[in-house]
């Protein structure tokens, strides 16, 4: 703190964030390594497979956090963009077997962005609950279109079975001849993309644009007055988040290799927004933390009974109780970490590291005050 000029510069460059990203990248990529050391029946889950889904959802949630957490605009319809990305590449790559899959993904991203722009321009004039309602409505409309436009989407049966195409599955993603056709390969692809998106995210947040977004979140009027074109920023960030969601969706399609409208229902939009809030709105790492926690939580709860010694094996079916626990845990997370788990974690870390002593002092002091 001695020289704010200098200190300011490093903080500006986001040095700390880039370091964290590096550590994160390294940590993520050794997950498959340690996952193999944990026997499957202990955790009762396929960690790599779940992590792939977490990576895919992270793409969506990072973008949504930019929109909700930084720019302060709600969306309860992001499953629609997720779906647009998924359907675009799925339809292109199954209808035209020669269609390069990476181009399909790109098309999905761009179409999601274009639709985001088309709906964002009018709808973002709304605020708060009304914006929430409008985006929710858009999500529902998208879902109905996925279901009803049978000639395009294969209706409720989905892609590819619902279409009259010769392929039995959506082809796996291949880039320059390299096929991402196993869980582990896809894991590296998905998380590689997540790291890149995070880099993009940090760059934006730590720059002129990021400051504009945060200003807009804090007070639209003041941001306007300071020369931030708030309407344009809102549209742009909406489009960006739609593109992130489209990317997630496109990856989803090529990983799942079969899609139907059920994966893009209203509750998925709610899940996305819940991930943002549980992880930490406006926290750089909040999105990813929220995704990982909420993706693993059901599996962890499912596996719980097995960790209780002496529990009969017949009790692997835990589905009724597990949702009760899931709901209660969701409430508890919000009660004890209202700023999100990411903020809670970093605060907890700082707490143990630096403030342990101060807390002890304060505690001592309070003891004396009490007397």
């Amino acid at each position, binding site marked *: 703190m001695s020289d704010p000029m200098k200190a300011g510069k490093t903080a500006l460059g986001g040095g700390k964030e880039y370091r964290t990203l590096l550590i994160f990248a390294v940590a993520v990529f050794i997950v498959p390594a340690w996952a193999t050391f944990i026997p499957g029946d202990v955790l009762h889950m396929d960690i790599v497979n779940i992590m792939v889904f977490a990576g895919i959802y992270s793409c969506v949630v990072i973008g949504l956090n930019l929109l909700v957490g930084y720019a302060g605009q709600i969306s309860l319809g992001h499953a629609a963009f997720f779906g647009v990305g998924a359907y675009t590449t799925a339809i292109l790559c199954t209808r035209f077997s020669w269609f390069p899959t990476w181009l399909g993904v790109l098309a999905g991203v761009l179409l999601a962005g274009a639709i985001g722009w088309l709906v964002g321009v009018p709808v973002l004039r709304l605020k708060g609950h*009304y914006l929430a*309602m409008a985006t929710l409505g858009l999500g529902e409309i998208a879902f*109905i279109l996925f279901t009803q436009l049978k000639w395009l989407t294969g209706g409720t049966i989905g892609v590819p079975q619902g279409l009259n195409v010769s392929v039995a599955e959506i082809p796996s993603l291949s880039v320059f001849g390299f096929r991402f056709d196993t869980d582990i390969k896809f894991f590296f692809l998905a998380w590689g993309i997540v790291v890149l998106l995070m880099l993009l995210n940090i760059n934006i947040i730590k720059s002129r644009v990021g400051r504009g977004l945060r200003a807009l979140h804090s007070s639209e009027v003041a941001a306007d007055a300071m020369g931030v074109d708030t309407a344009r920023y809102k549209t742009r960030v909406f489009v960006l988040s739609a593109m992130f969601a489209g990317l997630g969706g496109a990856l989803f399609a090529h990983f799942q290799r079969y899609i139907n409208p059920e994966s893009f229902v209203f509750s998925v939009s709610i899940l996305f927004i819940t991930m943002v809030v549980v992880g930490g709105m406006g926290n750089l790492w909040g999105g990813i933390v929220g995704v990982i926690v909420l993706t693993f939580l059901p599996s962890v709860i499912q596996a719980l009974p097995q960790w209780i010694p002496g529990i009969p094996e017949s009790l692997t079916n835990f589905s009724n109780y597990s949702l009760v626990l899931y709901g209660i845990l*969701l409430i508890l997370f*919000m009660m004890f970490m209202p700023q999100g788990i990411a903020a809670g974690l970093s605060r907890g870390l700082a707490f143990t590291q630096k403030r342990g002593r101060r807390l002890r002092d304060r505690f001592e002091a309070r003891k004396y005050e009490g007397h």
Partner: protein
Amino acid sequence: MEYWEFHVGRADRRQRALLVGSAVFVGLVIAATLISKGSTGFQWIVSGITVGSIYALIAMGFSVIYSSTRVINFAQGEFSMLGGMLMYSLSTRGGLPPWLGFIFSVLIVTAIGAALERLTIHPMRDQSVITIIIITIGIAIALRAVAKWIWGTDPVKIASFSGDSPIRFLGAAVVPQSFWVFGFAIVVVILVFLFFNRTLLGKGMRAAATNSDAASLVGVSSSTSSLIAWTIAAAVGAAAGIVIAPINFAGYNFGIMLGLKGFTAAVLGGLGSAPGAVVGGLVLGVLETITAGVFPSGYKDAVAFLILILVLLIRPQGLLGRAEDVKV
């Protein structure tokens, strides 16, 4: 944080003209339906009013909590679900006389609502609205799971209050329960409206949502206000669930649909306005049935949502919502 900040209204002449215009438009749609389809069109509108009354009742619960705490309670549909399921257990299965079953079901759900408020919402009163909204999502998930645990996954049926033989007039047929639902919606809206606009407590609660200092002047703390709001919303929700169950059936997962449609109706009518909830519900219901009749029925919800979005774009605070002027 102005995360869920409400709209800075600039209700000027242009908007009022648009409102009148859209009212005329709705009138024209109804008239056109009646003229072109005759008694069939009339049946659609009558059915729409039944469905709309159901939405209106759920919307009322949203409205009550919103007007005193600014929170959207995503567990509102679950209150109705619980009301219906309890009624099934107590009366249909348990043999209690219906009126007693009604009272007990409502009382139990009201107690649950109040307890949930004290347990999960009250401790969080200083937190941002979105945090509390996520908590209500958690509540909804947990309640749904408990209901599934207790009652299983099959929907259940509750007997109509006064028989099933339809009443016919002007070529349309209505089941008697529809009158119960419609009448109940009207009674509830009047009670809620009077409470919030004519009683000191109600006015204080509304004030508590925007300005806790003003509210404490009339002796209502935002904490009491929140408790009362949740209690009322749970009671209204449960009673609604019971009244609509003979038409609707009841099932552990019915709260999702009810909540979604109720929220939509509440926003359409203008959040926080009790008459708005009824108008929003009825408009949504009639819209749905007419579009189901006119368009390929698979698209009916899409058309309804599209119209909803258009309404919001023209009138961002809902049909009867008051534009709240946020001082710069």
